[in-house]
């Protein structure tokens, strides 16, 4: 269904752009989103950043976007259409667009690409991502403190390094403040499907979970948490309107400064292929305000962790840490390097269950 929608939106886009291509001195920037811009999560924030680009450069820039593009072959077609219709810079905003981006980038060496959360680069392909695991360390601390059943539910999307990093970081920090804490992880195999996300939240709550974290894009889990009277964290967006009582805090993605800077670089010819991985310090990862459900001492503790990560004095993955099988991953005081983190494919010691493959 979304694929059909994509074909037609893609076709409509191509038609619209052939006429616009005559206005040559504007820079054309395309965005590809994995969900609808109204998901109030991941795609919503990327679109907010697109609007920020328009605001920053006014008439000098023209932006287009295609939403709900499935990861895989459909993405390749949408990207090809965008490249053919005269875009100078294209942001592909989901991990699953990695290979399509590389394929299309190889065919269009003059078009610049920016791929979010991936690890493959080329001379016309940059990657960028946020250190979401820094935010997870903060909300993991809160989760460990506030849970009464000692069961924290985690709605995970796909078993990719970014998601696994988040689970590990949240668990490490919850465990640090609450040795009895247990994580129940449910993989839903989708980024956006409110009904499934709601079902997963319900299943977790029925099994005794009283705090929910999610790594999916819609606010469905927050709504269910509100309805069932437990607490949860906003993901990608603040989501407070969906859970006025349930929301404790949130991890907010702020892509706007990066997008504005990169579009600017493309305009003045200084754009180069880069690898950006920014965190709390750079403002790409924001921590939403702590609600009054977070006790003052816990809020102070969480804020302290956020501050120490921001100042660089603390890294969320600092040894001693063991892998799930008990072997040593990081020795005492050792800090995980970015290369290992980028390809993280194992749980840390204490998390139960296997990562699906």
């Amino acid at each position, binding site marked *: 269904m979304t694929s059909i929608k994509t074909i037609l939106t893609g076709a409509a886009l191509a038609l619209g752009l052939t006429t616009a291509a005559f206005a040559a001195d504007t820079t054309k920037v395309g965005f590809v989103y994995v969900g609808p811009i109204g998901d109030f999560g991941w795609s919503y924030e990327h679109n907010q950043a697109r609007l920020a680009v328009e605001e920053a450069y006014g008439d000098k820039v023209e932006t287009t976007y295609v939403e709900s593009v499935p990861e895989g072959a459909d993405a390749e077609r949408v990207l090809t259409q965008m490249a053919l219709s005269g875009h100078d810079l294209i942001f592909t905003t989901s991990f699953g667009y990695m290979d399509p981006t590389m394929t299309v980038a190889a065919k269009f060496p003059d078009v610049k690409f920016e791929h979010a959360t991936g690890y493959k680069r080329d001379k016309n392909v940059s990657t960028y991502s946020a250190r979401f695991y820094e935010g997870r360390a903060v909300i993991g601390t809160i989760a460990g403190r506030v849970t009464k059943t000692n069961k924290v539910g985690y709605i995970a999307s796909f078993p990719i390094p970014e998601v696994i990093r988040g689970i590990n970081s949240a668990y490490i920090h919850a465990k640090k403040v609450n040795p009895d804490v247990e994580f129940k992880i449910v993989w839903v195999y989708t980024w956006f499907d409110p009904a499934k996300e709601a079902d997963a939240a319900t299943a977790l709550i*029925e099994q005794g979970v009283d705090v929910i974290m999610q790594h999916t894009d819609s606010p469905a889990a927050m709504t269910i948490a509100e309805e069932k009277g437990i607490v949860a964290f906003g993901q990608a967006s603040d989501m407070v*309107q969906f859970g006025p009582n349930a929301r404790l805090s949130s991890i907010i993605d702020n892509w706007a400064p990066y997008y504005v800077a990169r579009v600017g670089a493309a305009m003045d010819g200084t754009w180069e292929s880069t690898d950006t991985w920014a965190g709390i310090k750079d403002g790409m990862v924001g921590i939403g305000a702590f609600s009054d459900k977070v006790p003052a001492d816990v809020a102070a503790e969480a804020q302290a962790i956020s501050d120490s990560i921001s100042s660089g004095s603390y890294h969320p993955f600092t040894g001693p840490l063991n892998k799930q099988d008990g072997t040593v991953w990081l020795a005492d005081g050792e800090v995980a390097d970015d290369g290992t983190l980028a390809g993280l494919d194992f749980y840390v010691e204490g998390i139960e269950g296997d990562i699906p493959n």
Partner: protein
Amino acid sequence: MDLSAINPVLLVASLMIAATPILLAAIGELVVERAGVLNLGVEGMMIIGAICGFAIAVETGSPLVGFVGAAFAGAALSLLFAFLTQIMLANQVASGLALTLFGLGLSALIGQGYAGQKPPPTPRLDLPVLSDMPVLGQVLFSHDPMVYFAIAMIAATWAVLKYSRVGLILRAVGENHDAAHALGYKVVRIRILAIMFGGACAGLGGAYLSLIRVPQWTEGMTAGAGWIALAIVVFASWKPWRVMLGAYLFGGVTVLQFNLQAAGVSIPVQYLSMAPYVITILVLVIMSSSKSRAALNAPAALGRIFHATH
């Protein structure tokens, strides 16, 4: 692994909730297809029902009015499809796909300003003695009224198709529209009514999503439920009670696998998720394996355009 963490009573209760949207949409589509029309716009009608039901319930404060409005909205959208395919004799597959696209876009437009709002809660059934029974009470007697309405729809559809004159005429139109026309039945009118019924049911299914199952409005929130409803109709080989079986199976697999995962059972999630589709393919293979079986099932005039030549 801790299977005892799964409460079978709660599991069955969530399963029924997860199955209801696709159950409603599928029974509507079954009637449409039994009348010989293939409407692939279920997804579009569902999402229109989801947003219209949500908006009306928020504005009036009554979930019941919301559901009624959703049914009307779904039926109204389906009229567009009916006009294209029954009056203009357009291709049904293309028109259905267009209806889905149109519905998704229109719902996003209507839904601006409704994201983040809370729908009024739908009261659950609370019968004095029955709802308080230990196990049966929770499984059978404490749902919201729509769960029972959906099951009643299945029973009603089955009875009407099997025993009533209306059902006979509807099936005649779906099996051989030329013969039905020759007998004096208004093929186009009957089909338009069937399409509207399908639209109303899909609208109700969508509203169930936005008012009860997820209680929120998010763009594109049906996320493919309409297509599952279409698959269920085929899986059910166009028989009402099997639609219910299919919906509970499709809905149940999702809920079951989430519960197993939460309980720490290491199961290959992918296989469980694709199980309903594999079963659908198997059903199709078995159905088409011999002529006698095939003849028993799909309506003979399904998807064919009717043009009265005399």
